[in-house]
C-alpha cells in the first residue's frame, strides 16, 4: 500500500520585505509580496524525498485566503500530487488554536494518512504551535525540529537537532513531523511542471465541506486577542574603527572590561 503523506504549508508575507506601518503598528501586507513559508518548502521537500525513495502520495493542505493559490500551484509544480486549500471567510482572523483545528479537520476529511509533515514554524508569527496542535487534535505522536526524515516498515526515523547533539527517533506511523528551516534544498519548479500544475489545479474546501461550525473557527474560535503591538527601539551601539595592528590592544581592553574571559586548559 502506498504511503500517504500530508504536508501542511502556509503563504506568508516575504520576511525580507516586511514593513510595519508606523501609525497602526500592523504589518503592511499591501506592500509585501506573498511567498510560501520557507520552512514549509523544506517540509514539502522532505515529503518529496520520501516519495522518491519509498514511493508516496503527497497531499498539500493549507488554510488561507484565495491568493494562497500561488502557493498551492507552486507545491504542485514541485511535485505534490494533490493540493487542498481550506478557505472560507469564517476562517479569517484565526489564532493558532482554530488554525490547528481547521487543518486537523481537513486532514481527517482527506482520509487515511501515515505521515504529516510541517515546517517548524512560520516566519510571520513564529509560534511553532500549529504543527504540534494538529498532532494533538488528531491524537497522534509528534516529532519536532527534525533535520532528516526517513521511513521504513511502518516507522519514521527522524533526526532531531538539539543544542548538544543529534537525537535519532524511531516512531510508528501515523505521526506528525516538523522540519527545521533550511534542513534541505527544495527542488526547482520548471516551466513544464508549472504548466502541468496549473492544468491539474487544486481544491478549495470551505467550512461546510470540512464539517466545521463557523463559531469554532476564525476569529470567533480564537482564545487569544492581540491587544497592542509596539516596536522595539533599536539600541544605540558604540562602534569604533581599529587598525589590524591594534587588535592586541582591543583584546586587552575587552579583557579589562570583563567582556572577554581568559580560560586556560589545564
Amino acid at each position, binding site marked *: 500500500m502506498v504511503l500517504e503523506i500530508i504536508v501542511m504549508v502556509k503563504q506568508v508575507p516575504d520576511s525580507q520585505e516586511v514593513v510595519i506601518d508606523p501609525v497602526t503598528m500592523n504589518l503592511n501586507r499591501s506592500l509585501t*509580496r506573498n511567498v510560501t513559508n520557507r520552512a514549509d518548502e523544506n517540509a514539502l521537500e522532505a515529503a518529496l524525498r520520501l516519495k522518491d525513495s519509498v514511493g508516496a502520495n503527497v497531499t498539500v493542505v493549507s488554510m488561507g485566503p484565495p491568493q494562497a493559490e500561488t502557493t498551492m500551484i*507552486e507545491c504542485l509544480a514541485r511535485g505534490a500530487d494533490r493540493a487542498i486549500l481550506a478557505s472560507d471567510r469564517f476562517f479569517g482572523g484565526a489564532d493558532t488554536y482554530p488554525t490547528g483545528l481547521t487543518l486537523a479537520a481537513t486532514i481527517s476529511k482527506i482520509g487515511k494518512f501515515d505521515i504529516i509533515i510541517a515546517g517548524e514554524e512560520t516566519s510571520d508569527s513564529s509560534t511553532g504551535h500549529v504543527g504540534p496542535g494538529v498532532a494533538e487534535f488528531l491524537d497522534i505522536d509528534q516529532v519536532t525540529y527534525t533535520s532528516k526524515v526517513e521511513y521504513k516498515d511502518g516507522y519514521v526515523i527522524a533526526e532531531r537537532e538539539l543544542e548538544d547533539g543529534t537525537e535519532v527517533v524511531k516512531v510508528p506511523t501515523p505521526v506528525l513531523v516538523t522540519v527545521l528551516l533550511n534542513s534541505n534544498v527544495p527542488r*526547482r*519548479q*520548471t*516551466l*513544464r511542471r*508549472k*504548466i502541468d500544475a*496549473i492544468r491539474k489545479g487544486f481544491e478549495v474546501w470551505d467550512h461546510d465541506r470540512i464539517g466545521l461550525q463557523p463559531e469554532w473557527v476564525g476569529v470567533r474560535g480564537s482564545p487569544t486577542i492581540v491587544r497592542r503591538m509596539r516596536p522595539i527601539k533599536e539600541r544605540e551601539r558604540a562602534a569604533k574603527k581599529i587598525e589590524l595592528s591594534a587588535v592586541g590592544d582591543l583584546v586587552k581592553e575587552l579583557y579589562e572590561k570583563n567582556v572577554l574571559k581568559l580560560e586556560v586548559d589545564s
Partner: protein
Amino acid sequence: MSEFDAIVVGAGPAGSSSAIKMASGGLNVLLVERGDPPGSKNVSGGILWGKDLSSIIPDWEKSAPLERYVERKVTSFLTHDSEIAIDFKTKKFQQDKTGYSVLRTRLDGYLARKAQQAGAMLVTGVTVDSLAMKDGKVVGVINEGETITSDVVILAEGPNPRVAISAGLREKPNDKTVAVGVKQVYKLPENVINDRFNLRGNAGFAGEYVISFLPNNVFAGGFLYTNKDTISVGVVINLETLRKDGKTHSFDIMEQFVQHPYIAPFLEGGQLQEYSAHFVYEGGYESLPKPYGNGYMMVGDTAGFSFSNGMILQGMNYAISSGILAGESAIEAKKDNDFSEVSLSRYWKKLEVSPAILDKKNFRGINSVVWSGLVHRTIPALLETSLQNMLYETGAPKKHLSQILLKSMSSTGVSSKDMMIQGYRLMRRM
C-alpha cells in the same frame, strides 16, 4: 500539433497586451514571466499614455491601478544652482486625461491578471532559457532542457532581451542603443505632495529635466513624477559620455540630481521605498531590428519601440500598441494556419502605419541632438546668464534683450553663427 497557439516571453505591458489580444481572440496562450509577481523585475519612469489600452480593456481608466493623471507638465534645465523651466498646466487635461503616473509593480500585475481573465495561462517565477528551433523556424521555448511548443513565440523581454539576442534575432544593446536608468521611489503623505506641487485631487505633476551641471561632459536627463502617495524620481544617463568620462558613477549622478536645490525640497522627509536601475532603450530608426520572422514576433522594448526627443520620454504606449498589433497578426495567421515569415510580415505592415514606427522615422537622428553639448551645456548656460541679467535689478542702466544675449554668448563661449545653425537643427529635429 503545438501545445499552445502562442507563447509570450515576458509579462510587461507589451507581452501582457499581446496575450490579452490573442486570448480574447480565442487563441490558446501561455504567458511566461521570470519575475514573481509580474512587474517585480521591471523599471520605468512611470507615465502611462494608455489610449491604446481601450481596444483591449475598454474600462482601463476605471479598473487599472492608476496613480494620478498628468495635469502639470514641466520641461526644465537644471544648472548647478538654477532651474529654467517651461511649466505647462492645463485644466484641459482634466477633461481629456491622457497620461497617468503608474507604479509598475501594480500595473504589470493588473495587465497580467487581465491576460489570465481573457484565458491566457500565466506562469511566473520561471525563466525561458532559449528558443526551440526546427528547420529554421521558431517552434517553442526551452526551460531546463524541456521544450514547450507553440505556433508562434512573442518576444517581450524588455530592453535587454537575452532570448532574442542568443537566438541571433537582435543585436546586443550598446552605448548608442541604450541608456542607463536609475530610479527611486519616495513615500510622502498625499496632502504633502498636493501642497508641494500645487495640485488638487487626483491631478499629478510630470517633470523632465536636462541635468547640465555634471562634471566632465557626462550627459544625463532626469524625471520626477508624482504618484498618489509616492514620488518616482530618476535619471537617464547617456552611456557614450559616461563611458568616455570613466570616473563618474551612475549612482553619484542620481544623488546629485535628488540633492539639487530645486529637486531636494520636493523629496524632503520622504521615505525611500525603492531603488532600482535598468536599461532604457534609445536606439533610433536605423537600429531597429526586423521584428518578425519564421514563427516569432518581437514587441515593445525588445523590438526597440520607445521614443524620446528631449521633451518627452515614452515607452509603455508603444509597448502596448505593438503588443496589440502582434496579437492581431497572430490571430490572422492562425486563421490561415500559417506562421511563416511571409505570413507574419503582416505585423510589419501594421507597424509601418503606427506611431511605433512613424515616430521613429519622423524623428530620425533626434538622438544626436538630444544628447548634444548644445542641449546639455550651451542652452542651459546661455539661458541662465541671460535671465539673470535681464530679470535682476542691478542698479545699472537696462539693456536690450539682444545685447544681453550677445554678451551671454560671448561669456559662455558661443559664436552667434554657431548658435543659429545649431538652433535651427534642433528646431527641425524636434
